[in-house]
C-alpha cells in the first residue's frame, strides 16, 4: 500500500512536467506527422477524407523544382564545416583561454559577443560587409590591387553558399568555445601537474589529458553543431533567403517558403517531420560514436 502511494506521489509530482513535455514537444510532432499526410493550404478547414494524400508530400519534396535533396546537401556541408572547422577552432580557443592567460575574461566576453547579438543584426552587418559596391570586403580587395568586376558575394551562385556559411560558422564559435572552456576549466589541476611532472609539453597535456577528459562536452558540442546545422535558418534567411536561384537553400528555408509563401502546409509539415527524424538520427549516431569503449572496441 505504501509502495502504491509512493508511485502515485511520484506520478503527481511528474505530471506538470509531463503535461508540458507532451503539450509542447510530443503533440506538435504528432500534429506535424498528421498534417504531412494531407494536401492542405493551412487556411481553410482540413477535410480529412478529401485532402488525404498519404506519403505523396514526401515524394514531392525530391522533385526537380523543390530540390529538397540539394538543400539537404547544403545543410550537410554546413554540418561538416561546423564539426571539422568551427569546433576545432572553438576548442583551440577554449584550450588557450583555459591556461589562465592575461585578459581571459575579456577574451571570453569578446568571443561570446556574436552569440548575444540578434541574428538579424548580424545578418545586416554581413550584408554590408558583402555589398558588391561599398562592402568592406570588395573595398579591401580593391585596396590590394584587385581591379576586376565587383564580386557579388551573395549574388553569384558559385560563391554564395560559402559566403553565407562564413558568418553562420563565425556566429557560434563563441558558443562552442564557452561550452568547451567550462569543460577545460573543470579538468583537475592535479592531472595537469602530474602530466607536467612526467615531462609532457602543453600540447601533450591538452591532447592526452584535457581533451579525453572533456570528451562528453565535445560530444554535446558536436550534437549541437550537427543538429544546429540541419535546422539552420535565421541568418541564411536574412542574407539570401535561399537565393540566388536556390544556391543557398537549406531545409528550413524551403519549409518556411512552402508553408507561408506557397500555402503548402502538407509539404511544409513533411519537411518538419524529416528534420525531426534527421536530428534524432544524428544525435543518436553521435552518441554511439562517442560511446566509451575498451581497447577491444567493446563497451
Amino acid at each position, binding site marked *: 500500500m505504501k509502495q502504491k502511494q509512493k508511485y502515485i506521489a511520484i506520478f503527481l509530482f511528474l505530471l506538470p512536467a509531463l503535461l508540458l513535455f507532451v503539450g509542447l514537444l510530443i503533440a506538435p510532432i504528432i500534429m506535424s506527422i498528421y498534417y504531412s499526410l494531407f494536401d492542405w*493550404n*493551412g*487556411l*481553410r*478547414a482540413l477535410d480529412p477524407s478529401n485532402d488525404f494524400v498519404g506519403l505523396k508530400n514526401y515524394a514531392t519534396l525530391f522533385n526537380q*523544382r523543390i530540390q529538397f535533396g540539394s538543400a539537404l546537401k547544403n545543410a550537410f556541408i554546413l554540418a561538416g564545416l561546423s564539426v571539422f572547422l568551427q569546433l576545432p577552432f572553438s576548442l583551440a580557443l577554449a584550450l588557450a583561454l583555459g591556461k589562465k592567460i592575461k585578459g581571459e575574461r575579456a577574451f571570453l566576453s569578446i568571443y561570446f559577443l556574436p552569440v*548575444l*547579438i*540578434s541574428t*538579424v*543584426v548580424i545578418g545586416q552587418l554581413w550584408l554590408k560587409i*558583402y*555589398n*558588391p*559596391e561599398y562592402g568592406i570586403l570588395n573595398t579591401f580587395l580593391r585596396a590590394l590591387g584587385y581591379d576586376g*568586376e*565587383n564580386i*557579388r*558575394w*551573395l*549574388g*553569384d*551562385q558559385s560563391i554564395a553558399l560559402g559566403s553565407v556559411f562564413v558568418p553562420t560558422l563565425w556566429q557560434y564559435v563563441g558558443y562552442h568555445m564557452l561550452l568547451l572552456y567550462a569543460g577545460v576549466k573543470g579538468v583537475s589541476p592535479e592531472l595537469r601537474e602530474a602530466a607536467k611532472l612526467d615531462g609532457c609539453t602543453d600540447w601533450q597535456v591538452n591532447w592526452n589529458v584535457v581533451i579525453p577528459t572533456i570528451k562528453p562536452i565535445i560530444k554535446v558540442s558536436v550534437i549541437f553543431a550537427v543538429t544546429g546545422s540541419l535546422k539552420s535558418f535565421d541568418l541564411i534567411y536574412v542574407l*539570401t*533567403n*535561399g*537565393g*540566388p*536561384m*536556390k544556391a543557398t537553400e537549406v531545409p528550413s528555408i524551403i519549409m*518556411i*517558403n512552402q508553408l*507561408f*509563401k*506557397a*500555402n*503548402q*502546409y502538407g509539404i511544409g509539415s513533411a519537411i518538419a517531420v524529416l528534420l525531426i527524424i534527421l536530428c534524432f538520427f544524428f544525435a543518436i549516431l553521435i552518441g554511439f560514436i562517442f560511446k566509451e569503449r575498451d581497447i577491444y572496441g567493446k563497451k
Partner: protein
Amino acid sequence: MKRILAVLLVLAMVFSLAACSKDEDKKPDNNNTNTGNTTTDSGVLDKEITLTLWDIATEGDGNRPAYDKALADLKAKYPKVTITETVTENNAYKTKIKSAMGANELPDIFFTWAGAFLGDFVNAGKVHCLDAELQPWIDNGEMTAAQLGNSTYNGKHYGVPTTYNIVTLFANMDILAKVGYDHIPATMDELNDCCDKLLAQNIIPFGCAGKTDDTWCVTEYLEPIIEKTIGATALKDIMTFGKTWNNQGVASSVDLLQSMIKKGYFDPDGIALGNEEVKQNFMAGKYAFYQNGSWNCGDFSNAEKVKFTVKAGEFPVVDSANGKLGMLIGGPSDTIAVSEGANAAAAAAYAVEFGRLICHYGYLEGSGLPAWKVWGDTSSVKPLVQQVADICAKAVDYVLFGDNAMPADEAAIYLEYVSSVYGGAVSGADFIKGLTSEIR
C-alpha cells in the same frame, strides 16, 4: 566602475534589440479632423470599442503619412474608438497574416492584397463581406464596381481598395539629356539606341533588384514586356483565368529581357541587391531608368537629388500586332479587409471610411492613384503622380500584378522561374515549358 559599465552595456543591448523589433505599436495623433463627405452609417462606432489593425505602413513606407492622417481624422470623428495598430514589414507581413489566418487570430481590420491573396482568405470563410457597408458609396458614385473588381469574389465585395498603382518606367531626364534624349524612349528602337548610348558613356541604363525576397522587382520588367508583346487580354487569360503558359510570345519576351541583361542594360550587381538599395541607387543618379510601382512617386518627388529630374512613362510596345501603349500592369490591389468576428460590424464601418481616407491622403502624398472618387483640394498633388494619372487616363486595359493575380502556390512557382530568368539560368523556351508543366 566595472558594474556601471556592465549595466550600461546590458541596457545598450536591450535597447538595440528592441529597436530591431519589426513590429511596433502606434497610436494615431489627434490633430486633423478632415474626414471628407462620408455617408456611412457609423452608429456602431459611437460606443467604446477597441479594434485591432495590422498593416505594412512602416516608418519608411510611402503610405505611412496617409495612414497617420487617416487614423487621426477618424480618432477625431470617433473618439470612443481605440485602434491598436501593429505595423510589420512587407515580406514578414505575408507570413504573419497567413499564420494568423491559420490560427484564427486575425485582427479586426487588416491590410491585404486583392486578387488571389485575399481570395484564399475569403475561400477559408474568415473575411467579412462588406457589401452592406460599401453599397451607399457605390450608390452615390464615390466608389465604382470596376475598382472593387479585384476584391470581389462570387459577386460579393470583401475589400476596401485604397490607392491603386501601375508599373511605371521612371526616367532620370538629366541622365537621358547626356545622350541626347529629351523624352522617355517611346519605341523599342529608341530604347535600345538610348541604352547603347548610355553604356558608351559608362552609365548603367536600368536598375533591378534580384535578391530572392525581391523577385517581384524582376516581374515589374518582365510582365510589361510580355504584355506589350502578347497583349493585355492574352496575359490576363494566363495569369487570372488559368490559360496555359505555353505561349511563344511569353518565351520571346523572356528572351528579350535576357538579351537586354546580356547586353549590359541592367546593373550586374542588381542580383545581389534588395529593392531599397536599387531604388536608392536610382535616386543617387546611378541608373537612367528604374521600372517599378507608381507608389514610388512620393519618394521620388521628395528626394532632393531627383525631384525635378524624374519623369514617369510606360515601357514601349514590343510587338504592335498585339501590344499597345496603355496596356498596363497594375490596378487596385492595396486593400483593407475585415475579419469575421465579434467586432466585424464596427470594424467594417471603420474600414470603409479608413480605406477612403488612406486613398485621399495617399493620393496627395504621392503613394498611389485614387481608387475612390477624388474629393477636397487636390492642388498639392505631385507632378509625378499627375504624370502617372495621365498615363492611366489613356489606359486601354489593366492586368493585375502576376504574384497578386495567381494563387499562392502558383505565384511561388512563377517567382522561382522569374528569378531563374534574371539569373540567366532558364531561356524563354525553358520558362514556358517549366510553367506549363508545373502550373498549366
